[in-house]
């Protein structure tokens, strides 16, 4: 700050002036920082809209024909050869979604000798998604109709969304050097008006996948659970992570067929709200505190230097 801290003889009045200047500096820093975006104390909350759309998957109806996978391939121009969807070989191992497979059906054996259960996985279209809150570039969006969509035009490729997703659904085009995209199911958002339903729901020969208003689907799921005691009394996705737009019902306990258990009922992004809201507090109090300590230290040093002089 001042150049001649050791020549305190003429510096007596400086410490007060300095103090004021520092207070001003601290104040300015404090005042400026809340203007910086990112100090959002109130992160956006998405209330479930009453018209939110959803998909209900009844695992007891699925026969593992994989026509939903084939339909997804076609609707999203994923470029896989149709023959891929004819073979049962794929059931030999558990697959995950990747850049050209937005949905995969896996064959799960719940217990020794038990009948297999076919489980279709894809993005869950969470109502308050971790991926949306993770993205520093606002590439992800939760739409009012329920679909969670992605905009490659602003994505920087940090892959935090992939890491943040509780279900590890988003995949990446690692082989593209010049325009790699994050890829995942978007509920056929872009042609849902034309098609009336996501490709997988339209094609399913077993009616294992139905599409509609979330409220209505939950009603429907409840009805099925009530009518048939064989169902597990749980609608997966109704409450998990604050609710998702993909709902599952099953006759086999979910934990035996690869579903994560004990998911929090709070939306995932809530875990960061507390931290995010401490940041503006830090921005305001810390500069003032540091400036205060500094001025005390300075005054002490000045006094000491003066003692040395005398």
């Amino acid at each position, binding site marked *: *700050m001042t*150049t*001649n*801290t050791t020549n305190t003889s003429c510096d007596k009045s400086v410490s007060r002036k300095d103090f004021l200047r*520092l207070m001003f*500096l*601290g104040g300015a*820093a404090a005042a400026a*920082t809340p203007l910086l*975006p*990112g100090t*959002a104390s109130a992160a956006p909350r998405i209330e479930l809209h009453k018209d939110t759309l959803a998909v209900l998957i009844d695992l007891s109806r699925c026969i593992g024909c994989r026509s939903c996978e084939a339909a997804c391939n076609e609707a999203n121009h994923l470029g896989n050869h149709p023959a891929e969807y004819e073979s049962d070989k794929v059931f030999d191992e*558990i697959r*995950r979604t990747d*850049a050209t497979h937005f949905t995969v059906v896996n064959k799960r054996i719940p217990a020794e000798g038990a009948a297999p259960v076919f489980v279709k996985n894809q993005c869950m279209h969470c109502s308050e998604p*971790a991926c949306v*809150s*993770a*993205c*520093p*570039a*606002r*590439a992800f969006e939760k739409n009012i109709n329920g679909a969670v969509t992605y905009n490659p035009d*602003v994505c*920087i*490729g*940090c*892959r*935090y969304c*992939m*890491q943040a997703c*509780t279900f*590890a659904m*988003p995949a*990446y085009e*690692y*082989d593209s*050097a*010049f*325009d*790699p995209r994050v890829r995942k199911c978007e509920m056929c958002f872009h042609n849902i008006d034309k098609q009336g339903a996501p490709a997988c729901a339209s094609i399913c020969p077993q009616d294992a996948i139905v599409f509609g208003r979330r409220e209505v689907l939950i009603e429907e799921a409840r009805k099925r659970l009530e009518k048939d005691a064989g169902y597990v009394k749980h609608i997966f996705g109704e409450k998990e992570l604050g609710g998702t737009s993909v709902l599952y019902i099953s006759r086999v306990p979910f934990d035996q067929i690869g579903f*994560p258990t004990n998911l929090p009922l709070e939306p*995932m*992004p809530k*875990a*960061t709200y507390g*931290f*995010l809201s401490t*940041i503006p507090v*830090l921005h305001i109090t*810390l*500069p003032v505190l*540091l*400036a205060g*300590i*500094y001025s005390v*230290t*300075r005054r*002490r*040093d000045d006094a000491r230097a003066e003692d040395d002089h005398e």
Partner: protein
Amino acid sequence: MTPEGRAWVRENILLGQSVRDYLRSLVTPWNLVGAAIVAVGLPVIIARFIWGLGATTNLSNTNPWGIWLGFDMFFGVAIATGGFAMVVGVYILGRTEYKPMVRPAILTGFLGYALAVFGLAIDLGRPWRLPYPLFVSMGTASVMFLVAEHLFLYITIQFLEFLPAAVEWLRLRAVRAWLHRIHIGAVILGSVLVMGHQSALGALFLLMPTRLHPLWYSPYLPYLFFASCVAGGIAMLVVESLVSHKVFGHKLSHNDHETIDRLTLGLGKAAMFALFAYLGLKLLSIAHGMSWNHIFTGWGAWWAVEIVAGIALPSVLFLLGIWRESATLVRWGSVVTVLGLLLNRMNVAVIALNWNLPDRYVPSWMEIAVSATLVVFGVWIFRWIVNRMPILNRLPEFPDHD
């Protein structure tokens, strides 16, 4: 080139030697090792930009983060905190006896951050969009955005803090005077930014309670990251001053052994308190998360290695070192602290992440080569600057007066 220009280059760039002598002086065993590493790593970096991440890394859809983030970014930024600790100690708390260590600390910090961002640019899918989150499409509710914003501002501040040495080297008096005026403001703003982004780096993982192993996941992650980076940053200063003393001893005219040992003990004390705070928080986070049942698994053993070897052992070394006034013990403690910090960041960002998902990530040799190349760059740039600019010594025409 004018004769004056030639003389200037000879004096300031070539360290007073002729071009031939200077080049010859570069041929040393360590430089050859470094050159060999760069000869492998540099082509890999180029390959990554031509053929993409898929061709060069072992990253997968399940493990999208590898050592370019775990080592270069999370560890690199954490050990670079020494610059912050030093300016706060000297300028805010008035521990002026540490002044001779401020400039090397700032340089280490600045280079650490700069290289971390370089590593990030190699890792990002579309690095040319690095400014997007800041200026084009701001995801203000994202912790990653907070990290980006604070990092960007802090690197600017660190550059300003480093600049005095550069302008003194170039004898730019007017700029020097101006830098002097904004100095304390930069220190204060910088401190706020460091606390912000170091804790935010930990907060990135708050979204992953189902993906990060319960022994490492904790709501305290932001505070754990901050406490550990302060300890690790200070320890790094000790390590760095140890190496500097060996390599650049001739420059340290005003720094005799005794002073250095005394300062080392002081730094050891500071690092020890930060480690204690860190250890306490770490245990508290396990108690809070009720994760004791994981202790007796393989993961628990690995966790214990991190706690015992990475935190408890250096704490004891510091304690003994301070008690017996042995700078050597403090130096050992510092080396172990830095390694412990490395282990922690690798665990949180890479190893214990996605622990319950089927495929494991092991870095490819190309990823390792690139990370090693960045380290070599760091050492080379550090040495180039220290050999020329007033970092360890002061120029007579610019006495020490900040």
